[in-house]
């Protein structure tokens, strides 16, 4: 009797471990439109309404916990924001002047903004608790015009890009995901580079592949570089704020590591916008002589 129980226990364990290894192997070897991926998308689609309902119902509890944390951080944040406000006032005055100049030059060049994006507002309802997967799910999908690789932003700046889409929802890969990468530029230094996640250091980004890294200083803002080549167009429009250079390690030109702090608080995402491709009406209005520039 005892032997039978032991054999049964070991058989169940072996079967479950074998199932896990089989799943891992098949998942890794199949393409992104393979059977397991499709099943995963189907299950996501089925469970999405339940998860979204639960997310809305439990929002007050989440907010309550968030309130405690926010209250503790509020004083420190207020002082930092006051400093930032003073800096920004000076900046606004300078930018006003540059904006007027920019408009004048655009008028001279008859600049046509047919590449405008159409933002689709979405709510985040699921997120991964793991350090290794920086993904969230949003309640807008293919039926709303959302497609794979479209940029996702919030009020603070770039959040990530669309990783997978089903009819009514989509998975967003955050900036800190190990598979993420975007062409970027340091604003003050005017140095191009690529922003990559610092894998193994949660919440940290790296500005890599910078030709003259010494020119980049802490406090410099980092934005998306946008398309630099017609042949290899970037899905990200130029000028989206990614973050601020937090610290720089190493003295030499080659061993410099530039750490960037994301502008968006990726741990507290509630509402985001997907920058979908322009609709036919928008393109037509921009193309017409009287259309918006």
């Amino acid at each position, binding site marked *: 009797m005892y032997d039978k129980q032991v054999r049964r226990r070991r058989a169940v364990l072996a079967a479950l471990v074998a199932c*896990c290894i089989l799943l891992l192997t098949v998942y890794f070897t199949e393409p992104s439109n393979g059977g397991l991926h499709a099943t995963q998308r189907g299950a996501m689609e089925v469970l999405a309404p339940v998860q979204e309902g639960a997310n809305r119902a439990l929002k007050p*509890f989440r907010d309550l916990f968030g309130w405690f944390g926010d209250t503790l951080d509020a004083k420190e944040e207020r002082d930092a924001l006051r400093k930032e406000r003073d800096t920004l006032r000076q900046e606004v005055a300078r930018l006003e002047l540059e904006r007027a100049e920019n408009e004048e030059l655009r008028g001279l060049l008859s600049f046509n903004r047919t590449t405008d994006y159409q933002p689709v507002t979405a709510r985040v309802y699921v997120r991964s608790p793991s350090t*290794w997967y920086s993904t969230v799910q949003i309640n807008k999908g293919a039926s709303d015009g959302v497609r794979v690789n479209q940029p996702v932003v919030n009020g603070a700046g770039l959040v990530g890009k669309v990783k997978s889409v089903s009819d009514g929802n989509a998975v967003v890969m955050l900036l800190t995901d190990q598979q993420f990468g975007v062409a970027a530029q340091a604003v003050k230094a005017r140095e191009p580079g690529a922003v990559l996640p610092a*894998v193994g250091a949660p919440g940290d980004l790296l500005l890599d592949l910078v030709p003259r890294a010494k020119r980049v200083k802490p406090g410099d803002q980092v934005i998306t570089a946008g398309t630099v080549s017609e042949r290899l167009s970037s899905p990200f429009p130029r000028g989206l704020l990614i973050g601020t250079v937090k610290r720089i390690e190493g003295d030499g030109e080659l061993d410099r590591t530039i750490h960037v702090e994301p502008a968006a608080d990726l741990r*507290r995402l509630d509402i985001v916008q997907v920058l979908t491709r322009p609709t036919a009406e928008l393109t037509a209005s921009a193309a017409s002589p009287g259309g918006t520039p």
Partner: protein
Amino acid sequence: MIWSPGAVGRLAALGLVGGILQVTTVSQVLVFGVPADLSPLLVASVGLLCGSVAGATFGFCLGLFVDTVLFQTLGVSSLVLLVAGYGAGRLRELRDPAHGLVPVAVGAVASAVAVVGFSVLQFLLGVEAPVSFLLIRQILLVIVLGTLLALPVYALCRRVMLPYLPDDPRRRRRRAYTTGGLSPLSRA
């Protein structure tokens, strides 16, 4: 555990509700700067209450559910959680610990197994990442948070599964009506 359709149904409901609660709410609440992970605690509690086979199976199914809804690599969470569930179940079968704080220790170990196991699997799957101070701090904080939440999660699981657990002779029983006039039988 007394295996019956009711027990399996309760375990399935526990996993479904726990999984949905985890991905929709608990993951978005930060304590000490990290989100809590209820999955290893649920699995360890079920293992401790129902045994190794139930713990391993529950861990596999909950891991599969979490991987599916979060669009993660299938099989990673299942493998880690089934180890946590099986380990907790074997502890019960071999030692049958009676101390009230055992669920806390088991919760801490299960959280550690889950978070370290997950990281090791990611390294094995080819993620080239340095073991940074930030990562170690995050792992330790997740374990501390798991330890703090272990007791309430265990109490909840025990309450859900109580009708299907074998009678524990150590459980304190209500004193029988022996004094005159207080027994309902004496009124009859």
